[in-house]
């Protein structure tokens, strides 16, 4: 238990460092996809430190300043309820997947309040789009989770991870306990939803720098933006860790970190070659094929467990 608390205290720092590293390597990979040389992999750290080292702090109001703080706190608390693979369950025995689904929302909600007080219409449009995108991807995603709950008879993430546990060693590879193999359709649906959660193309309507001047971030600069970048890094870690915990069996640290990274890179590669949907199209997309696939996945699960 004490070790667990230590892990919990360290988890946010590790997650921030990992998330920033993922973004940095991701930028390099995107650059290579576009036949560029690309920035160094540690570029994101430099950017973050630079932003935090900016000297001017201009704020539109109390909640404008509190928004990023609330976002960061929301992301960190979510993080603690997601196990770090099978290595450290952190607090995940004290809350289950439904709690996590709602804790994830705190960060955008806090951000939304700050953005709203920024009194810039671009930010408000960005938030309206972000919430709509959430409306779009949550429905298929919750159905994908539903099939997992059907299969494992639990909503606790730690127990879902345990149910996929095999013998983990470098020599012996027991990947076949993964829910990805048991529930392939649901895993695909969840991965499609992950694309929207991470806000990668074709679902980057929220940021859309060319349309709405980077949307929610339009009035944020300097240190606040630094906090938002950290929050984004945390967000990337949370979403990918959730996916790996549920569908790729968590696993020990040497598997967990590369797994989260490859899940992120997969969505980034898709991001690299696609243009952007209109927000209405994104809604139509998610409520079309992925939703039907999710329902098929559930029916498949019901057949499998019988």
């Amino acid at each position, binding site marked *: 238990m004490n070790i667990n608390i230590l892990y919990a205290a360290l988890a946010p720092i590790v997650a921030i460092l990992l998330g920033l590293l993922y973004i940095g390597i991701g*930028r390099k990979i995107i*650059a290579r996809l*576009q*036949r*560029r*040389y*690309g*920035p*160094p992999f540690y*570029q994101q750290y*430099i*950017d973050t*430190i*630079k932003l935090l*080292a*900016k*000297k*001017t*702090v*201009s704020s539109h109001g109390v909640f404008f300043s509190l928004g990023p703080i609330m976002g960061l706190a929301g992301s960190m608390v979510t993080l603690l309820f997601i196990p770090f693979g099978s290595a450290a369950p952190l607090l995940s025995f004290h809350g289950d997947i439904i709690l996590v689904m709602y804790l994830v929302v705190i960060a955008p909600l806090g951000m939304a309040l700050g953005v709203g007080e920024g009194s810039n219409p671009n930010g408000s449009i960005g938030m309206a789009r972000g919430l709509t995108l959430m409306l779009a991807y949550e429905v298929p995603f919750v159905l994908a989770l539903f099939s997992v709950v059907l299969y494992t008879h639990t909503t606790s993430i730690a127990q879902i991870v345990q149910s996929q546990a095999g013998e983990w060693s470098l020599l012996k590879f027991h990947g076949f306990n993964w829910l990805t193999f048991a529930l392939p359709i649901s895993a695909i649906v969840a991965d499609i939803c992950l694309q929207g959660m991470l806000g990668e193309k074709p679902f980057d309507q929220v940021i859309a*720098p*060319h349309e709405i*001047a*980077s949307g929610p*971030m*339009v*009035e*944020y*600069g*300097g240190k606040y*933006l630094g906090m938002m970048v950290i929050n984004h890094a945390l967000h990337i870690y949370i979403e990918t860790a959730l996916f790996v915990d549920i569908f790729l069996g968590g696993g020990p640290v040497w598997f967990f970190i590369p797994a989260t990274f490859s899940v992120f890179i997969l969505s980034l590669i898709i991001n690299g070659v696609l243009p952007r949907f209109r927000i209405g199209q994104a809604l139509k997309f998610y409520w079309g094929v992925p939703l039907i696939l999710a329902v098929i996945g559930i029916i498949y699960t019901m057949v499998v467990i019988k």
Partner: protein
Amino acid sequence: MSILNKFRGKSLWMLHYCTGCGAIEMPPVMTSRYDMERFGIIPMATPRQADILLITGYLAVKTLKRVIRTYEQMHSPKWVVGFGACTVNGGMYWDSYATIKKLELYLPVDLYIAGCMPRPEAIMDAFIELRKGISSGKYEGWKKYIENYDWYKKNQAKLFDVKKWSVNYE
């Protein structure tokens, strides 16, 4: 603060104010051919996030007001780069009634890139120069702007009503 300056030099987020023909030289610099992202330079959408204000081309009095307002909205430390002959001395608009001739009278220009137009190689070279200068703390235009605020405002006031256009007077 020299360590922080090293970080600042390696991460330059740029707001490009594209008037006139200078804008056409930017796409090759941004994209695969010259790839400025490898130096940590990426274009930004709003002044709040940017470090460099890049002015590519002539500035009419009318656009100068907006540029100054944009500059004042940026978070310091910040730098201004004048790009092309038009920002140096008016260039081909040397006798135009509407465009300004010397940008440094109104904004603290840290670096001029001369030429009509400067080639992408010139821009890259200038960015590297800027990067070195920022890392060593050589470029401090934003400090000068604060120190000599009245001097700059006096110059600006000759062209337009600064009270109406500056964010600091509201």
